[in-house]
């Protein structure tokens, strides 16, 4: 499994490279700058979390990296088309769990004869063996996000973009999914760019935490997280670093109340 999913990552020195990326939107009050001069590399196999308060343009940034939108200035290069996972599962309700995954395979050009087996493998990877024929509405919130993860993995992209994928889940389910994501990430060698506003989640998962300031979004600070995996969200080192980051984040937010 691990060998089939991991791509020849050595050939490129980054999974995503953002160089001086800016994005502004036209509003009734004129141009509004949402992202300002973002420079960021995601190395092959690296797990990076983007952290920020509301208004930091996290989702805009992911849309740009996913190629759903174009930057106003700067350039974004990715190693192939990234896969994207949303806060809502975004599974198609007219297909079963298995067929949702097969659609991603089909759109990638996988031969019909191989799709079924590959979809079952991916379901097994997210520990949903036997959910192949289940309809989306028959699955719990956590199970839906795991199918969505399997569907994203089916794209065999080197880079997985995740837009607050666990924000709508309850704490226990979220914990379990953190474990799953860490396991799958270490098994597959994927690069992950994970957006969240939850500091502990960011520290629990990442090798590197990037803090964005708000309005406009800029890279405010970065932390390397060298706490060994497996981590738990309530581990002391995780809590300690979270506290430090939270203080900086609060400082960033406070600036907005001062003028």
């Amino acid at each position, binding site marked *: 499994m691990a060998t089939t999913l991991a791509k020849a990552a050595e050939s490129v020195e980054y999974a995503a490279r953002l160089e001086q990326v800016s994005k502004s939107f036209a509003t009734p009050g004129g141009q509004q700058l949402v992202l300002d001069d973002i420079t960021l590399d995601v190395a092959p196999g690296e797990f990076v979390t983007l952290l920020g308060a509301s208004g930091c343009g996290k989702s805009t940034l992911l849309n740009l990296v996913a190629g759903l939108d174009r930057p106003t200035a700067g350039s974004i290069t990715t190693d192939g088309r990234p896969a994207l996972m949303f806060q809502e599962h*975004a599974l198609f*309700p007219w297909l079963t769990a298995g067929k949702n995954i097969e659609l991603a395979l089909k759109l990638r050009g996988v031969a019909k004869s191989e799709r079924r087996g590959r979809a079952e493998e991916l379901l097994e990877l997210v520990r949903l063996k036997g959910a192949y024929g289940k*309809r989306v509405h028959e699955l719990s919130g956590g199970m839906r996000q795991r199918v969505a993860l399997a569907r994203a993995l089916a794209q065999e992209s080197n880079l997985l973009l995740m837009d607050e994928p666990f924000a709508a889940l309850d704490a226990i389910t979220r914990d379990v999914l953190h474990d799953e994501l860490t396991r799958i990430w270490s098994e597959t060698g994927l690069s992950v760019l994970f957006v969240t506003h939850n500091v502990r989640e960011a520290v629990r998962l990442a090798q590197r935490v990037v803090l964005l300031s708000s309005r406009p979004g800029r890279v405010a600070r970065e932390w390397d997280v060298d706490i060994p995996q*497996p981590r738990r969200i309530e581990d002391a080192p995780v809590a300690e670093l979270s506290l430090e980051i939270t203080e900086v984040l609060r400082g960033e937010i406070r600036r907005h109340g001062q003028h």
Partner: protein
Amino acid sequence: MASTETKTSPESGSVEAGLDALETAQPGRTPFRKTFVDKVVPPITAIVVVLVVWQGLITLKIVADPTKLPTPGAVWHAFRNDWLQGKLLGYIWTSVSRGLLGFCLALLIGTPLGLLVARVRFVRAAIGPILSGLQSLPSVAWVPPAVIWLGLNNSMMYAVILLGAVPSIANGLVSGVDQVPPLFLRAGRTMGARGLKGTWHVTLPAALPGYVAGMKQGWAFSWRSLMAAEIIANFPDLGTGLGQLLENARTASDMAMVFEAILLILFVGIAIDLLIFSPLERWVLRSRGLLVKG
């Protein structure tokens, strides 16, 4: 699976399995008796009440003129006669085959038309309002022009069906496409479903509930239009459908036969809906978890 590489705490998988079991809804089946009492008994009761009131009106001499109101027995007799003479199924088939053929043609025209209106901004601005306005035009209004254009023949009947059903089908598809959640389109695009692939794999299936609702309404309009057309285009060599049966009964002043024709028109329209369109709609909604068990 490379389980040796697993770095997570060992109990994580079993917690997950427990969560999955707890949060998955248990499928249940409604017992037959309950379905019978909830769904079958009420309409039967309603029919019995109507029959009792009807017979009561005559027995109590509130309506004494049999040319105005025939007895239920006389209407039953009219049904029985046509059945025994082997004509009943012929009437029904003549109308149903026209209706369904006309409906299929309307589907063939309404579907691309709806897609065009939904996806091409210019076309939508040009004919969108007219298309939705046409739905409120009673299809009987198309009978006079259709007779003048095409004469009293089968083509005229199909033309009236098309004019009645095409707007419904097209509009259903348009509103179905309009209601596709943007998230589905984004998800589709990140997987590489753009352009025609996106339409085929994402937009159309996502729009299916609205499309089926439009089909259902389209059938109702087809059937009404056809009856209007049949009453006007009444020639023996065109074949006798239910509309012609009604018109013949009126010329013969046979009130029992008039009732027979009206009841047949009603029941056939309902039957087609119950046998084809309602199951289709229920299937579409249920498979998406959109149908809540009442």
